[in-house]
C-alpha cells in the first residue's frame, strides 16, 4: 500500500538538512509519495525505513515490455482503478490481426497498411503498435512464412497466437533478438508454452475463463521461470469480460494479489469491446479487422482516456483565424486549454462570424483556473498580442477578454496602449449574442 506524505515523513530523519534538494523533510516526503523523486536522494534514511519504503513502492502490476528492432510497447505499472485518482500510465498497445491462412500477397499488403498507418490528432501522430498473427491454418510453415513476409514490410512488435506450439516455435525463428508475446497458454498446453517462453525470452499470454484458472496458470508459469506474463480473461460475454477485467485490477491493487498482478489482453471484435477494453483496464488490444475508420477513433479514444487528468491537453498558443477575418475584426482572447479553445472556436465557427482567436499560453489551464493560478494575466495577454504582431497587423485594435476575467480589463488596458479592451461573455455560447449586441456585428 502506498504511504501518505505524513507517513513517509515519520520515517525520515526530520532534520530539514536540505541535502536532498528540498527545503524540508516533509516536502521531500510529499514528493516521494507522489513518486516524483527517488528515495536515494536522501543520504540519511535508516536501513529500517528504507526497507519499509521500498516495500510500499513495489508496483502491484508488473511492467511488461514487448520489443522489436527500434520499438518498445509497455503495459502494466498501473496504480489506480479510476483515472481521476491519479492517471492511467501505459496506453494499451493496439495490435491488428493477420491470419496465417491469408495469401502471401494479402499478408504483405495488410502488414504494410498496418505498419504505415499514421493519423494526426491535435498535433500528435498516432499509430498502430504492432501485428498479432493468428495461426488459423495451424501450420508451422505458414507461420514462418507469414512472419518473414511481415518482417519484410514492418519492424513493429508482434504477437503470435496458436494452439500449436510448433507454429509458435517456427514464428519465433524469424524474431531473433525481439521480445514478442506468444500464446495463448491454457491449462492443457501451458507447460510447453512456458518452456518456449523461457527459452526465447518471449512474454507469455495465459488464458482462462475464471480468475482461479488465470491465477493457477500464472503461478505455474512463474514456477517454471517465466516472469513476463499477460493475462487473457476469457469472458462469456461483454459484461463478463468487464467484470473479470475489473476484478483482476482490483485484486492486484487493493489486495496486492501477486498471481494476478500482470497486465491483461483483450481480443476485440465489436465496437463495444474496443471502447470497454480501453476504458476498463486492458493492457493490450488485438483488433480483428484493420479498418481506418475504426482505428482512427480507437486511437483517439485511447489517447483521451490515457491523458493525465492533472495535465490537460494543450493547443499551440498563437493566433487562429476563424471565418476569414479582416484586420478590422475583433480579437478574442482565450487560453490554450484544449477544451476552452475548442468550445470558443466551435462557437465562433458555427456562428459564421469572423474573428481572430488569440490563444495565450496559460500552461494548458482553463480561463478561471489559469486566472486563479496567476497564469492568465494582463502581462501574458499583452505578450501574446505582441508575439502575434497584432499591433501592426490589425487596423482596428479591439481585444475581447473572457467574461470570467473581467477584473483584468484595467490592467490589460494599461499594458496595451492604443487598444480598445472589451469584456466578452463568460460562456462561449453567448459569443454570437455578444457580437450582435455589443460589437454590433451581424
Amino acid at each position, binding site marked *: 500500500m502506498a504511504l*501518505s*506524505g*505524513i*507517513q513517509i*515523513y515519520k520515517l525520515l530523519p526530520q532534520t*530539514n538538512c536540505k541535502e536532498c534538494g528540498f*527545503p*524540508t523533510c*516533509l*516536502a521531500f516526503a*510529499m514528493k516521494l509519495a507522489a513518486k516524483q523523486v527517488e528515495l536515494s536522494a536522501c543520504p540519511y534514511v535508516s536501513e529500517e525505513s528504507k526497507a519499509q519504503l521500498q516495500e510500499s513502492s513495489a508496483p502491484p502490476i508488473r511492467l511488461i515490455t514487448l520489443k522489436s528492432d527500434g520499438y518498445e510497447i509497455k503495459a502494466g505499472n498501473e496504480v489506480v482503478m479510476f483515472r481521476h485518482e491519479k492517471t492511467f500510465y501505459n496506453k494499451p498497445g493496439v495490435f491488428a490481426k493477420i491470419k496465417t491462412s491469408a495469401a502471401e500477397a494479402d499478408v504483405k499488403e495488410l502488414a504494410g497498411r498496418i505498419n504505415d498507418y499514421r493519423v494526426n490528432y491535435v498535433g500528435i501522430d498516432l499509430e498502430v503498435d504492432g501485428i498479432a498473427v493468428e495461426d488459423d491454418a495451424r501450420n508451422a510453415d505458414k507461420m514462418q512464412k507469414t512472419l518473414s513476409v511481415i518482417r519484410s514490410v514492418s519492424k513493429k512488435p508482434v504477437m503470435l497466437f496458436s494452439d500449436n506450439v510448433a507454429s509458435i516455435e517456427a514464428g519465433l525463428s524469424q524474431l531473433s533478438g525481439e521480445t514478442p508475446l506468444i500464446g495463448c497458454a491454457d491449462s492443457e498446453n501451458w507447460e510447453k508454452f512456458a518452456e518456449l517462453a523461457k527459452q526465447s525470452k518471449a512474454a507469455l499470454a495465459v488464458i482462462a475463463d475464471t480468475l482461479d484458472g488465470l491465477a493457477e496458470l500464472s503461478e505455474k508459469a512463474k514456477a517454471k521461470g517465466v516472469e513476463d506474463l499477460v493475462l487473457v480473461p476469457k469472458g462469456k460475454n461483454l459484461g463478463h469480460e468487464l467484470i473479470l477485467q475489473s476484478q483482476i485490477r482490483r485484486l492486484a491493487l487493493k489486495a496486492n494479489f501477486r498471481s494476478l498482478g500482470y497486465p491483461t489482453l483483450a481480443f476485440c471484435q465489436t465496437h463495444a469491446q474496443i471502447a470497454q477494453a480501453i476504458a476498463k483496464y486492458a493492457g493490450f488490444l488485438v483488433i480483428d479487422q484493420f479498418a481506418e475508420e475504426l482505428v482512427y477513433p480507437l486511437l483517439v479514444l485511447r489517447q483521451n482516456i490515457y491523458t493525465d*487528468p*492533472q495535465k490537460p491537453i494543450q493547443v499551440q498558443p498563437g493566433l487562429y483565424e476563424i471565418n476569414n477575418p479582416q484586420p478590422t475584426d475583433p480579437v478574442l482572447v482565450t487560453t490554450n486549454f484544449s477544451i476552452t479553445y475548442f468550445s470558443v472556436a466551435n462557437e465562433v465557427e458555427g456562428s459564421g462570424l469572423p474573428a481572430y482567436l488569440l490563444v495565450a499560453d496559460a*500552461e494548458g*489551464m482553463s480561463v*478561471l*483556473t489559469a486566472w*486563479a*493560478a*496567476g*497564469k492568465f*494575466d494582463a*502581462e501574458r495577454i499583452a505578450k501574446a498580442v505582441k508575439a502575434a504582431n497584432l499591433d501592426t497587423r490589425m487596423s482596428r485594435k479591439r481585444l475581447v477578454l473572457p467574461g470570467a476575467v*473581467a*477584473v483584468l480589463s484595467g*490592467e490589460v488596458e494599461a499594458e496595451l496602449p492604443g487598444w480598445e479592451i472589451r469584456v466578452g461573455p463568460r460562456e462561449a455560447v453567448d459569443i454570437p449574442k455578444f457580437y450582435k449586441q455589443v460589437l454590433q456585428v451581424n
Partner: protein
Amino acid sequence: MAEHKVTFNHQAEPVVVKSGTLITEAARLAGIEINQPCGGQGRCGRCVVQVIDGKVRQRSALRLSAEDISLGYCLACQSIIEGDISVIVPEQEKIERRLVTDRTAVEVEPPLGYSPEYHQSLKRYFLSFAEPNYEDQTDDLSRLQKQLRVELGFKDVEIPLSLVRKIGSALREGNWQVTVYLNVNGSNESEPHVCMVDVLPFHCESDSPMWGAAIDIGTTTVTLWLVDLWTGVVHAQVSEYNAQIRRGEDVISRIIYADKEGGLQELQQLVVGTINQLIELACKRVKHYPVQPEDILKLTVAGNTTMMHLFLGIPPSYIRLAPFIPTFNQAPFLRAREIGLSANPHAIVDCLPGVASYVGADITAGVLSAGLDDTQKLTLFLDVGTNGEMVLGSKEWLVTCACSAGPAFEGAGVRDGMRATSGAIEEVWIHSETYEPSYRVIGGGKPRGICGSGLISLLAEMFMTGVIDKAGNLNTQLSTSRIREGEHGMEYVVAWGEETQHGKDIVITRVDIDNLLRAKAAIYAGFLVLAQSVGVPLEETEQVLIGGSFGKYLNIEKSIQIGLLPDLPWEKFNFLGNTAVKGAYFALLSQENRERIREIASKMTYIELSADNTFYEAFMSAMFLPHTDMSRFPSVLGAFQTANKLSVQT
C-alpha cells in the same frame, strides 16, 4: 387561558398578555420598540433583553453565552411568556458587546520575564578609559578595542568607518567616559558576531530607554511599533497606508511597476518614506521621554516577500514568474543608512526571513506570534490580506500556502466597498420576510460604503434570507424593490440615496457577489488543500487563529455561514489582529525569538497551489454558499433550513 403581567424597564404599568405570548409581542403592546433586524427569527441576536424577575421558556438561545443566560438574558423574539415577568430592554450599544461571535484583537504587553541583559541582542556598556599620555601612545581605536576585548571578552568587534570617525571626539568630549551600544548576535557555543551601533560621549542612566522599532510592511498598510528595548514596553503603535499604493494596489502590479525604468528605485523610496514618516509620528507620540528618530538603534522588519524586495531595492521580477523563485528569503543584517531610514544611521536593520515567493516574513513572524511552532494542538493560522496566506500544523510540522483572494475583504474591487473606517457599513441584517436591511456604521453616522466585515455579513444575510441562491444569483422572483436590474446586471440596494453620505444608493452587484465568492472560495480551498496535502481532515483542527487587516473585528458566525471559515465551534477561533508586526516585535526583543523565526522559516513546507488541479477542484467546490459539500457545514445547513422552512430531503 392564563394571563400574565409583564413589566418593561421598571414601568409603573405592566401590560397583561396571554400565556404563550412572545416577549416581542408584549413589548409592542407596551409601546416599546425592540429591534429585530432578522425579522424575529432568532438569527441576529439583536433583540436581547434581560429578564430580571420571573421565568420564560426559550425556544432558542443561539448567540448567548452560558454566562449571559445565567444573568437572565434571552432573545425576545424566541422567549415565550408563561408567568409574570419583569424585563429590561438594554440599549443597543450594550447588546453588541454581549454578542459572543465577534472577535476583537487583543492588546499587547511585554512578554513575561523579559530581561534585556538576557534576551536582548542590543547591549549597552559603560566604558571608562585612562587618559592617554606620552608613555601610553595607544591610538583611540586600539584603546577602545582593547577595552572591549579585556573587559567584555569581544575579540572582533565590527566598527564601521563612520563610527571610527566619531570615536576620537566622543572619548574626549565624554572625558574618557563613553557609552557604547553593541549588537551581539549569536549563540553561546559559537563566537558571536559583534558590531558597534553607536558610541556616546557620556554614561547615560543605566535604566534609560534603548529605542527600537518593529515594522510590518503590508501591501496596503505599514505598521510600526516603537519599543523601549530596556523594558520591552511598546510606547507607540502607528500605521499608515503604504505610499506605494499609488503605483498599484496589489503585489503583482507593484512587481510590474518595479520592472519599469526607475520604478524599483521609486517604490523603494516610497516605502522608506512611509516608514520615516511613521518613525517621526511614533517619536512624537511617546509620552514622558523626548525621542528622536536617531535614537532608534535597532529595527526588525516583517513583510511579504515582494515588499521585502522592494524595501531593499532588490528587483522582485522573478517572484511572479514560474517557478516563483525570489532573489532572497533571508537578508543579511543591514544598517539604517544603507536603506535611507531616518533612524540612527548605524542602527541594525534586521529583515526577518520568509519561506517562498508568496509566503514571506509576515507569515513566519505571524507563526511566531501565534505560537504555532510551539503548540501540541493542530492549528490553522490564517492571515487575510490581498493574498490569503495560511499555515497548518503544530510543533511537529508546518505546511503553508498562499492563494490570491483578491482585495474584496479589504473593501476593494467591490463597487461600494471601502476600508474599515468611519462611514463604513460593518454589519448588516436582512429581514427574512420584507428583505429590508438594517445596518451598523462605523462611527455611527450616515454610510459611505461597505467594509470587509460588512461585506461578509451582507453576503451571509442575503444567503440566509434567500435574496441570493447558493450560487450567488439574485432571486428576481422576490417581491422587493431592492433587487433590481442595474448597470452591470442584477443588484441589491443596501441603502437608498437619502440615507447615505453622498446621496447615492449603496448597492451590491452580481459582479461584487462573484468577487466575494471567489475570495472566500480561494481561502477555504487553501485550507482544504493544506489539510489534504498532509492527509488530516480539516475538521480535526483544534484551533483557528486569524490575523490580518479586517479592521478591528471579524464576525466568526457569518464567516462560517458564507463558508469562508471552516464550521468549527466558535470558541476554537481567535482573532489576533496584526500578527506580523507582533512577531517582529517579539523578534526585536529577544534573540531566542529571532532564532525561532529562522527555524520556522526553515521548517515550513510550502505547498505550491498552481502545481496541479487539486486547488482548482477545491476552489470550484467552495464557489457555493456555504460549500458544495454541505456536510462540511452542518451548522449552516441547519440554520438555513430553519430560516427557509425547508425539510431535509431523504
